[in-house]
């Protein structure tokens, strides 16, 4: 049962506006400019937020809707903004993200874009992908999923398949909760089974630190040419509920079938993926992957002594929450006191928690009294400080730890590392409590 705490406001918000998710998705694409249609604060806050999280240059722009005349609504800011971005940055395409303000104003974005094309034919070669992101609806994962679906639906080519039976090319539709470490692990596993993969969007490449020069547009993520070809793939793998809409588009428009994994965190979820890969390719798992599983099993055994009798609480977007919650409760045997989340999609309602709450970090603070530790973003630091509880950092933002984006939380390797990390937290508590 999902609890909704009766209160009129959100205190210490867990939720981030959907524009933050949409911009994140665009950052995982090659030479796109995310352009936020609204007052400049929406973009500025989000830029600050994501820059601190990734510790990378995060290109994005704003139409800077300003002053009363534009509040009444006309095309000028939007058109000028698009034209300036194309002139200055020459992106491969623009991700146009609306905001609560332009949504309330009832801007007709599609109509405005048609008028833009009529007025400025010289910019015809730069596609503009509009994404509706009213921040009074949905959360960051919603915006992320919406941006990915909107981009696909505008850019994919209807597939004419010539190599139908090769079963070689697979789209990995990567949810917002995945880190560069997670994406790297998936690429290696799929390659290990002899498959070619398109990761969409690919934040590991653009925000993972491999671009060593200055850039005005995100580089190395999924390119527009690659996105166009996704309809030619033989199969799609969905990781996280927020990417299902993208998979549906590929299925309906290009008949690419898909398989959805709600989580890849933990031994069981990893087994499910590997079994599927064995079935799909008819190949055996590579040796290194078998070794990773053996090590994960060993790690769980070593760590389990300190797990028993512990409890924790967790807060995060639904996809993030489900995978971690599931692994810690069902495979580690740690009691989940409270799970707080931001939107009603995905599988989190199935978690064996004492409380499942749609809420904020105040709810997490109030309903985690018996928890031994907390799993949440850096925004839970003040509350953990007040409650004297250790915080294991996940999600957005993690701004006070280096290297979070390169940690792996999925697959056998992620299962092993999580067993160690959580085991260390529990063991430290045991040692402290025994008075040493």
């Amino acid at each position, binding site marked *: 049962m999902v609890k909704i705490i009766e209160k009129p406001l959100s205190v*210490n918000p867990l939720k981030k506006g959907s524009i933050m998710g949409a911009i994140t998705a665009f950052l995982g694409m090659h030479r796109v400019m995310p352009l936020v249609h609204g007052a400049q604060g929406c973009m500025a806050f989000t830029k600050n937020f994501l820059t601190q999280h990734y510790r990378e240059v995060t290109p994005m722009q704003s139409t800077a809707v300003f002053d009363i005349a534009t509040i009444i609504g006309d095309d000028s800011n939007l058109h000028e903004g698009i034209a300036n971005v194309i002139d200055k940055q020459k992106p491969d395409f623009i991700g146009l993200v609306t905001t*609560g303000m332009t949504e309330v104003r009832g801007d007709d974005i599609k109509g405005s874009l048609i008028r833009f094309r009529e007025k400025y034919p010289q910019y015809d070669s730069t596609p503009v992908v509009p994404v509706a992101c009213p921040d009074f609806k949905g959360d960051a994962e919603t915006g992320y999923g919406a941006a990915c679906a909107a981009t696909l639906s505008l850019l994919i080519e209807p597939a004419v398949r010539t190599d139908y039976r090769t079963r070689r090319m697979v789209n990995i539709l990567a949810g917002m909760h995945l880190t560069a470490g997670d994406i790297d692990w998936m690429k290696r596993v799929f390659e290990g089974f002899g498959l070619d993969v398109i990761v969409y969007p690919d934040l590991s490449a653009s925000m993972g630190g491999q671009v060593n020069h200055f850039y005005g547009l995100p580089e190395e993520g999924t390119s527009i040419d690659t996105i166009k070809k996704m309809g030619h793939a033989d199969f799609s793998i969905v990781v996280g509920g927020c990417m299902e809409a993208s998979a549906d588009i590929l299925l309906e428009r290009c008949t690419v079938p898909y398989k959805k994994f709600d989580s890849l965190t933990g031994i069981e979820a990893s087994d499910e993926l590997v079994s599927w890969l064995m079935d799909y390719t008819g190949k055996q798992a590579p040796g290194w992957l078998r070794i990773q599983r053996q090590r994960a099993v060993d790690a769980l055994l070593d760590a389990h002594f300190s797990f028993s009798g512990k409890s924790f609480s967790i807060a995060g977007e639904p996809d993030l929450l489900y995978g971690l919650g599931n692994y810690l409760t069902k495979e580690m045997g740690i009691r989940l006191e409270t799970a707080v989340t931001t939107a009603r999609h995905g599988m989190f309602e199935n978690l064996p928690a004492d409380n499942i709450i749609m809420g904020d970090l105040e709810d997490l603070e109030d309903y985690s009294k018996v928890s031994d530790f907390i799993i949440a973003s850096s925004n839970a630091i003040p509350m953990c400080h007040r409650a004297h509880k250790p915080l294991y950092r996940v999600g957005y933002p993690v701004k006070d730890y280096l290297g979070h984006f390169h940690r792996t939380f999925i697959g056998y390797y992620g299962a092993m590392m999580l067993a160690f990390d959580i085991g260390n937290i529990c063991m430290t508590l045991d040692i402290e409590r025994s008075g040493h």
Partner: protein
Amino acid sequence: MRLAIQQLTEEPGCDHNQKKTAEQKKEACKKPTPGATAGGCAFDGAQIVLLPVADAAHIIHGPITCCGQSYNNRGTRTHVGNLHQYGMTTDMNELDIVFGGEKKLKESVRYVAGKFKPKAIFIYSTCVTAMTGEDIHTVAKEMTEELGMQIIPVDSPGFSGSKNLGNKFAGHALFNHVIGTREPENVPMFPINLIGEYNIAGELFQVEPLFEELGITLFSKMTGNATYEELCYAHRSKLSVVICSRALISLARQLDEKYGIPYFEGSFYGMGETKKTLMKIAEMMGSDLLKKKVEELTARKEKETFEKLAPYLPIMKGKKVLVYTGGVKSWSILKQLEEMGMEVIKSSTRKSTEEDIARILEYFEGNEDGLMPKGDGKTLLKYMKEYDADLFLAGGRNMYNAMKGQVPFVDVNQERHFAFAGYEGSLVLAQKICGTLTSPVFSIVKKPAPWEVSFG
């Protein structure tokens, strides 16, 4: 609302406005260019000014982005309370927008008043609630009566302008709803208002001991480490010192007009400016004793600081710096760097007023090449190369631009964890500068990879 914005953008005390024609004056300060903007909105600016008041609660009336993306992101420090660590928002959903959110806002105020027992509550309007016509003023009035607690409306829709204008909105709210609402029991000998110092990374803590030693009371601090109560007393100060914020000069002027409190603009960046500011306070207080004390204190502190700086000065000597920051810092930091023997090659004027620019020009001896009106990451890195600069000094937003360019960098803005004010601050700044200048990291990252080296 329209009227208020006009009033605030036509600031007579703001000297760049005095030079404008009547026509120019009607235009709001500096319009951003769509598709080529940087910097926050008016709401951001209002929150920067008021959030440091940590025994008051701050409720943001709007949908989630305004609070959700900005929560837990301020470097302000305080000993007064912990409400600056709380983000509160009515988190408007679709239904609230259709049916109106004033009831929700009232219930939020009741909830916060009951649970957190703040000294006062600031309620902020945002783009969406301003557009749908939510009347935060009436809500504030009614709730003030109901709860017997001061509820202060802050008009701060992001679309109304830049961060600077938002600073003014906050000043406006303080002047109209807070200052002069209570009387202090005692007024000390030398009470002053410190306006525009937000105690980022504890900068106020670096200068507070100086005032203590001089016997000057920071009677009303706006707003770093301030109690709500002291803000109410600001009208009883004898002098306002505006730090680092031309935006709040309007507040100082209003205090002057209504209560006859004179004001001037000072800075605590660098030993020279610190001394100048303290001396000016002593002069304006008309106390020779105070002047003498300032003279003694600053001479002693300068001597001590130069002794402590000794190991760092040779490293910094003659090194070339590119400075990209806003407002007062754009000239006062130049002087601070100069004191330590560094040479600034260019400084930004993006957020500077005419007077700021005049002072920057003074530093460059009239050479306009030193001015940098605009600069994106690419341009800044180009300058670094062109002028063979050794160090890049800018805000956190530019930190990763600098890292992509693999150049030494020091963060001088909002989110940093180090304080650079007063004497102590100069030492910290020197340590940070030398830390990055002498780091072995820069030579190792420039080493070509084995596969980039050609043999033969």
